[in-house]
């Protein structure tokens, strides 16, 4: 990327959702309200952990944020402009999204899949530029996937595959990364390493990251801004220490306070 953003509290928001509502439809009639007035803005250099129970609207929020689904109410702005006014390619140059259940096609090699991340930047009809090659290489290093180069993606383990997919989204060199459960299938070491990498990219390149995470203890480790989503509403938004309180987690996830205390690392936070 030519324009490196330094993280700054005064940066204008990269992505800004205001009072966004969305519901899926069945036979033309509204079926289920998934987002009920979500407001969220992300500035360059921010690391945001998105937590919430299953079905709380995290994945839908991502889809609406990149314009794959149109917001029924409210507004979604990317770089100050309604997200639906950008072309798909323009959005892809700014936001990379790692789906929760990606399809990995048979037969491709690791480096071929990672190179697909360069698609939104492609200028030539055929082949890849030196810039593409460098981006792919950087992404492979950042995602700790260099040792997988040359192997077929369909023959990798779940965790190895996840590292390759993370590398693909990094190769896209977006300004905002939306990661839907990026730590799934990863062993403990790779979970910690991924969060450390995201934190480094945030600091050095001004990358903004919104990641769906499920583990409060792991989340606390990265010390991000935490957004807690429940039933389509933002119920808490703030520093990890403020949001990851056992009492709040217990209420949102419908578990007991002692359990929540254990799951969030054993030490009570700001209760």
């Amino acid at each position, binding site marked *: 990327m030519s324009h490196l953003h330094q993280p700054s509290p005064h940066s204008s928001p990269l992505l800004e959702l205001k009072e966004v509502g969305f519901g899926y439809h069945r036979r*033309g009639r509204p079926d289920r309200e998934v987002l009920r007035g979500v407001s969220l803005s992300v500035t360059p250099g921010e690391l945001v952990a998105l937590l919430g129970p299953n079905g709380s609207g995290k994945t839908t929020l991502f*889809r609406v944020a*990149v314009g*794959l689904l149109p917001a029924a109410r409210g507004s979604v702005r990317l770089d100050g402009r309604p997200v639906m006014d950008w*072309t*798909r*390619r323009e*959005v*892809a*140059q700014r*936001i*990379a*999204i790692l*789906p929760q259940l*990606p*399809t*990995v*096609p*048979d*037969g*491709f*090699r690791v*480096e*071929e899949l990672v*190179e*697909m*991340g360069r*698609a*939104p930047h*492609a200028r030539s*009809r*055929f*082949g*890849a530029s030196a810039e*593409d*090659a460098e981006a*792919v*290489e950087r992404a*492979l*290093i950042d995602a700790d996937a*260099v040792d997988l*180069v*040359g192997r077929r993606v369909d*023959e990798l383990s779940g965790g190895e595959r996840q590292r390759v997919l993370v590398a693909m989204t990094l190769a*896209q060199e977006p300004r905002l990364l939306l990661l839907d459960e990026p730590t799934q299938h990863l062993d403990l070491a790779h979970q910690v390493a991924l969060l450390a990498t995201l934190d480094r990219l945030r600091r050095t390149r001004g990358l903004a990251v919104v990641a769906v995470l499920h583990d409060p203890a792991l989340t606390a480790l990265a010390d991000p801004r935490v957004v807690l989503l429940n039933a389509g509403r933002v119920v808490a938004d703030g520093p990890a220490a403020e949001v990851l309180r056992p009492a709040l987690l217990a209420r949102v996830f419908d578990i007991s306070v002692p359990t929540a205390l254990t799951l969030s690392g054993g030490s009570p936070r700001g209760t």
Partner: protein
Amino acid sequence: MRASVATRSLVGGPSLGRATLVIGGALVVLLASVVVAVGLGSVEVGLPEAIGIIGHRLGLPVTETWASTAPTILFEVRLPRVLAGALVGAGLGGAGVVFQALLRNPMADPYVIGTAAGASLGAVLAITAPVLVPALALGAGTAWLGIGLAQVLAFAGGLGAVALVLVIARQGGRSNMVTLLLTGYAVSSLVAAVVALLLVSSGRALASVVGWLLGSLGGAGYPELAVAAPLVFGGSALLLFRWRTLNLLLLGDEAAAGLGVDLVPARRGLVLLATLVTSAAVALAGTIGFVGLVVPHLVRLAIGPDHRLLLPVSCLGGAALLVLADMVARLVGGVPVGVVTALIGAPFFLWLLHRAAGATTTP
């Protein structure tokens, strides 16, 4: 350090050397197939004579050792048939790749969303109409720009059936690929039933109807080739430029869209081009099976799934396969080319599949 060494040569898709080697190799195979197919036949124009005649026609100083009828056999009978085989094979091979990626289904072939059924209906109507309605027999021999009514109606039928499938599949909001596939299947079945109905009432036209349905390259002449070639070449060339989209579609809709693919227009363009190519091929030669389904798989096993190479090599491979299969069909005499492709191709494909499966399980 390790990273640079490991990745630098690998990034950027197939290296120019590999691409040249693979495409060049496929081109050589195709040219060799064409030369052999032109040189072999039931009449006494052998391979050396064929090469001599072609050389002579190209203005090379070759002494005439052949019968005076030989050039006519070569240029008016064999060559158009071989060229038609190459054209149809290229179209079906390429369109097969596109439909398999588009529908993300290994069982997809160029006929899957209605092309074959629609083209059959068109051709069968053209063949049987004069039998069923004797008044039409007066116009049966007419040709438009030297092209038979059956071919024109087959082409129109292929396009029409796909248009119908697309319209039906789009009802009820966003059409997804499963809906498209199932709609194609349903419409094909319906149209096939009408074709069967015409078939049983076709009387003395039965043989030519069945012949058309099994596929044959015998009916192709230069006028038909001149119309079909731009459609197949033009469509395939435009498809080649879309290799990146085809690769991305394999990642699933959400990931493809996330990487900048505008799904609806991208798919529409691919369906349109692949249908155009398929309809031209079917109009020229009838519904030749197997090529469009299996050639993409054969090529994928050999060189991998990257559409940058998969698409052009499947075109060239499909062309070579059909030229050779038709040669066998001619030499055996009277066997439909579709039967040959399946009889020889299917066991070969099974063997290759078995070998590939073995290769992945051995350490």
